[in-house]
C-alpha cells in the first residue's frame, strides 16, 4: 500500500516528494509504528498518521561499534516516543532509528549528534540508511530509506 494511496486520518497533506513517516491508526483509536494488519487489540486499520512533523523524546539510546555489513560505524540508535497530543490515550507511539549526523544527513562518515534520555528530537529523512546490497536480506524485499532523529534546538 503506497503512502499516497492510503487514507490520511491526521488531517495532513502530502508535501513534496518526501515519503511519509507512516504510522497506522486503528478503529479503537490506537496508533502503531510500523503499521500492522490489525491493531494491538485486534481492531481493524482505518488509516494512516504521518509522524514527520511531530517531535519525540528519546526513551533510550546506544552507540553500536560492531555493525553488520553495509551499516555505518559507529551507529548511534535511539528509541523515541512521539508526542501524540492530549487527545490520544493509546499505547505509546515509538520508533527506533539512527541518530542523525550534523550537516549532510546522508553523510555516514561524520559522528552522530550526542543525545541523552529525555532529549527532544525530530525526524529527518534519509535516502539510504544502509547499503542494501551488503547484508543478508534481499535488497528488493524492503525499503531502505527512512527517518533519522536529530535534536531539536531548545
Amino acid at each position: 500500500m503506497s503512502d499516497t494511496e492510503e487514507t490520511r486520518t491526521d488531517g495532513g497533506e502530502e508535501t513534496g516528494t518526501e515519503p511519509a513517516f507512516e504510522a497506522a491508526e486503528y478503529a479503537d483509536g490506537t496508533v502503531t509504528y510500523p503499521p500492522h494488519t490489525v491493531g494491538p487489540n485486534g481492531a481493524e486499520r482505518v488509516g494512516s498518521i504521518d509522524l514527520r512533523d511531530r517531535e519525540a523524546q528519546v526513551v533510550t539510546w546506544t552507540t553500536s561499534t560492531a555493525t553488520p555489513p553495509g551499516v555505518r560505524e559507529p551507529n548511534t540508535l535511539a528509541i523515541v516516543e512521539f508526542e501524540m497530543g492530549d487527545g490520544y490515550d493509546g499505547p505509546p507511539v515509538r520508533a527506533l532509528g539512527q541518530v542523525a549526523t550534523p550537516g549532510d544527513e546522508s553523510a555516514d562518515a561524520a559522528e552522530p549528534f550526542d543525545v541523552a534520555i529525555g532529549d527532544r528530537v525530530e525526524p529527518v529523512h534519509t535516502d539510504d540508511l544502509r547499503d542494501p546490497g551488503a547484508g543478508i536480506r534481499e535488497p528488493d524485499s524492503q525499503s531502505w530509506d527512512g527517518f533519522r532523529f536529530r535534536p531539536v534546538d531548545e
Partner: protein
Amino acid sequence: MERVAIIGASMTRFGQRDAWVRELLAEAGEAALADAGVDGDDLDHLYVSNMASGEFEGQTGVSNALAHDLAATPAYTARIDQTSASGGAGVYGAWQSVASGASDLTLLVGGEKMTHRSTSEATDVIASLTHPVEYKHGVTLPSFAGMTARLYLDEYDAPRESLGKVAVKNHRNGVDNPHAQFRKEVDLDTVLDSPIVADPLRLYDFCPITDGSAALVFCPESVAEEYVPEDEYAVISGIGGATDTHVVHERVDPTTMGGVVDSSETAYEMAGVGPDDIDVAELHDMFTILEFLQSEDLGFFEKGEGWKAVEEGVTDRDGDLPINTSGGLKSKGHPLGASGVAQVYEIFEQVTGDAGARQVEADTGLACNVGGFGNCVTTAILEANQ
C-alpha cells in the same frame, strides 16, 4: 496428559570446532542415545533445533540428514526454528510429542555452526530476525541490549558494575564446565575496561559466537524405568511458551520481557510450583542485562531488584538461588539452536545429581530460553524423580 521424562542427555564441547553442523548434531545425538541406552531405530520422533544452517553453512534439511546419520529412519523428523530460542522450542516440541501420545520415544538435538563466519556476518544473520523498519537502521541484537541496559540502569538506579558482576559470576561458573567455550575467570576491571560494543555494554557483557550441539531423549514417565535407573531420569513438570511483540520498541515497558512472564506463568501452573520453589536456574544471558530482566520477570526478584541479587551473591553457585551454574551463554557459549537444549541439559545434570564440580542442592530447576530480544520464549521446569 502423559507426564514426560528425560532419560538421556549429552552435549558436545562448545567453542570453535572443525566439525560442520551435520557432524555436530550427530555427535550429540549419538551420545544422548547411548546415555539413554537406546538406538536410532527405536525413535518415533526426531527433532532438530537450529536457527540458520542454511544461512550459515548452506546446509538445509538437517533433521532428515541426522535421521539418516543415526539410522533413525523412518522416524518422523522436523527442524524447529525459533531463532535463539530454537532449543527451547525444540524441548517444547519434543515434550508435546510424548505428552500427546504421538511418540513413545523422541530425540531432540540442537546445534549450530557459526564460527566460520566473521563477527559482522554472524551478527547480520542473527539481526535478520528483526522487522524491516528495524533492520534498515542497522540494528543488531547487541544494540537492543545496549539500549535496554541504559534504560534499566537509569530507571532502577543500578550501578554499571552490577552488569559486570554477571559476567564475572558466569565466567567463574564456566571454569568447572568441561563443555564450556571459556573456562577462564575474569575480574570486574577486565569486564569494565573491555572495548565498547553497544554503549554502555562492553565486550565482556556479550556471549561469544560458538559452534556446538546438545541432545535430550524423551519418553513417557510411566516407562522411564524400563530404560534407566530411577535416579537417572528427570521429569518435565511444567513447560510454557509465549511470544512478545516482533517490533521491540512497541513494548510498553522495554525493561519487561512479556514472553518470559507469560511462559513462566504457564510452566509454574502446570508444575504446581512457584518461583520460590526453584532451586537452580539457567537463564538466557546472551547479554548480561538479560539475566537481570529474566530473573525479575520469572518472579525470582521484584522488578528493578535483580541487580541487587547479583551484588549480594544470591545467584552465586553457593547462593540461595544459583543462576547459570553452567557458565551460562556468556561463558559456555551460544550456538543458537543448541543453547536452549544445553540449558535443559545443565538442569537435568543438576537435578539428577550428576553435575560434578558444579553440583548444587537441587530437586527442582528451571530453564528459560529467549529468542530475538524476548520475541519468543520457552520456560521449562524439571524435577528429580522422587
